[in-house]
C-alpha cells in the first residue's frame, strides 16, 4: 500500500465478505426465454383475435393464418408460388455468388483488379438494385431473366465486398509463412487465403441470402404471376389479410431455414474456430 490512512481509520476486527461487483455485461442468452416470449406474444395475439378485441380484417388471429397456410398447401398453390420464388432466388443467388466470389478474390489478390474493381463497386453498390428492374426488363424482356438478374446483381455486390474484405483480413503472417517455404501462389490461395477468408465469406452469405429474399419479393410484386411476393400483393389487393400474413409467415420460415443451413455450413466448415 502506498497510501496508508492509518491515522484516520478506526480499528475494526469484524470480517465482511467482499461485495461481488462483476455481474452483467456478458453476451449470454437464456435457452428458453426467447421461445417462451414468442409463445406468449402469439398467445396474446390469439386471445385478442378470438375475443374480437382486434378486427380480423386488419390483423387475423394466428389460428386463421395457420388455416390459410394449410389451405394453400392443400390446394397446391403454396408449392406453385414457393417453387417459383425458390427457383428465382436459387439461380440469382448462385450467379451473383459465383461472380462475386471471383471478383472479390481478384480484388483481394491483384493490385490492378483492386484499383478498378473497388472504384466500380463503390459507385454501383449504393444503387437500390430493384430500381434497375425496369431497365433489366427492357434489356431482357418480360420473363424470369430480369428478376433473376436483379437478384444476381444484389447478391454480387455484397458477395464481392465480403470476399475481398475476407481476403484482406487473412493474417499476413500466414501468407509470409507460406512464402518462406516457397509455397506457390496457387497453393497459397487454395490452402491459406481461401480458408482464411471463409468466415467472412460465410458471413456474407447470411447477408446475401436476405438480400436475395428481399429482391425476389420486390421483383415479384412488380411483375410476376407466381411467387410469394406476387401472392402477398394479390392477397393485399383483395383484402385477404389471412392469406397475406400466411405469405409473410412463409417468407419468414424460408429465411429461418436458409439461416439454419448457413449455421450448419459454419459449424461444418469453421469448426476450427
Amino acid at each position, binding site marked *: 500500500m502506498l497510501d496508508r490512512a492509518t491515522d484516520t481509520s478506526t480499528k475494526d476486527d469484524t470480517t465482511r465478505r467482499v461485495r461481488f461487483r462483476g455481474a452483467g455485461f456478458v453476451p449470454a442468452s437464456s435457452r428458453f426465454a426467447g421461445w417462451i416470449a414468442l409463445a406468449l406474444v402469439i398467445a396474446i395475439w390469439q386471445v385478442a383475435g378470438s375475443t374480437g378485441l382486434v378486427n380480423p380484417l386488419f390483423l387475423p388471429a394466428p389460428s386463421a393464418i395457420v388455416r390459410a397456410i394449410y389451405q394453400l398447401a392443400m390446394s397446391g398453390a403454396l408449392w406453385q408460388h414457393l417453387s417459383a420464388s425458390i427457383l428465382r432466388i436459387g439461380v440469382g443467388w448462385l450467379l451473383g455468388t459465383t461472380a462475386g466470389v471471383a471478383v472479390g478474390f481478384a480484388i483481394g489478390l491483384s493490385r490492378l483488379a483492386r484499383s478498378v474493381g473497388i472504384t466500380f463497386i463503390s459507385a454501383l453498390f449504393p444503387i437500390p438494385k430493384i430500381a434497375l428492374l425496369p431497365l433489366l426488363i427492357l434489356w431482357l424482356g418480360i420473363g424470369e431473366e430480369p428478376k433473376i438478374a436483379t437478384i444476381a446483381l444484389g447478391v454480387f455486390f455484397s458477395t464481392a465486398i465480403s470476399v475481398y474484405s475476407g481476403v484482406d483480413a487473412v493474417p499476413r503472417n500466414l501468407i509470409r509463412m507460406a512464402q*518462406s517455404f*516457397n509455397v506457390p501462389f496457387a497453393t497459397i490461395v487454395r490452402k491459406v487465403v481461401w480458408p482464411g477468408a471463409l468466415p467472412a465469406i460465410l458471413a456474407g452469405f447470411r447477408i446475401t441470402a436476405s438480400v436475395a429474399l428481399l429482391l425476389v419479393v420486390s421483383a415479384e410484386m412488380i411483375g410476376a404471376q407466381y411467387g410469394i411476393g406476387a401472392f402477398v400483393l394479390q392477397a393485399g389487393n383483395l383484402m385477404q389479410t389471412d392469406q397475406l400474413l400466411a405469405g409473410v409467415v412463409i417468407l419468414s420460415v424460408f429465411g429461418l431455414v436458409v439461416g439454419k443451413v448457413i449455421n450448419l455450413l459454419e459449424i461444418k466448415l469453421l469448426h476450427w474456430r
Partner: protein
Amino acid sequence: MDLIANHISHRFGDLAVLDDISFTVSAGEVVAIVGPSGCGKSTLLSILGGLLQPTSGAPELRGTPPADSLNPLTFVFQDFALLPWATVEENVEFPLLHTQLSAAQRRALVEDALRRTGLTDFRKTYPKQLSGGMRQRVGISRALAVKPAILLMDEPLSALDSQTRELLMEDFVRLLADGGMGAVYVTHNLEEAARLADHIVVLSRRPGRIREVVAVPMTRAERGEIAAREKLLALQNQIWSLIRNEAIDAEREVQHA
C-alpha cells in the same frame, strides 16, 4: 552452406532502419542478433530470409545446402504462424505439399519431425487446443520437416511464459547440438543469446549498425554446467553495457511515439 549479410541497408520511406550490416553465418553456426527495441533485428532477419527486399546490399548464400534440404533457409516465427484450420500434422505437412515428395515420403518426414518435438500424440489436435509452448513446438516441427540448413528464428520464445521458454530453450540446445543445422536467432533476451549462440551480433539503436560481434567462448554443452554460469553472466553484462544507454533511449522513444 554459409549465409552472408553483404552490406545490407534498409529504409522504410524516410526512416533508415538498417545501415551497412555485414556478417557471415558459417555452416552449422548459431548467430544471435541482439539490440535495443526498434533497431531492425526482425527486419534484418526478413531480409536474410528473402521475405523483404533491402534498399541496398543483399543476403547471399555460399556453398551448397545439404542434398536432402527442401528449404535451406527456414523461419521459426515469433507468433508461430500456424494455420488455425489445420491439425498439428497438417500444419507440419503444409510446407511439403507442393514438393515432389510422395505421400509416403511426406508422412515419414512429418512423423520424424513430430517425434523430434514430442508432438506425436498431438497430431490430430488443432492449434487453438494447444498451449503457447506446444504451438511453438509445432512451428519448430514444421521447420524441421523441410530439413533446413539454417533456421531463421525471430524471437521464437518472446510470446511464451518463462517456464515454457526454459523448456523450449532446452529443445533448441538439443536440436542444434550436433552442429548439422545453423541458425540466426533474433532476440532481445541476452540470456537466450548467450545460451545458444556461437557469435552474438550486437546492433545499435535505429538505424541498426553493427556495434560489435561477440564470440561466446565455450561450447553449448558446457554452457549448461553450473561452472559456466558466471562466465555467461559476465558475457551478458558485457553486452548489456554495450546497449544499455541506447535501450533506455529507444524505450523513451517508443513511449513518446
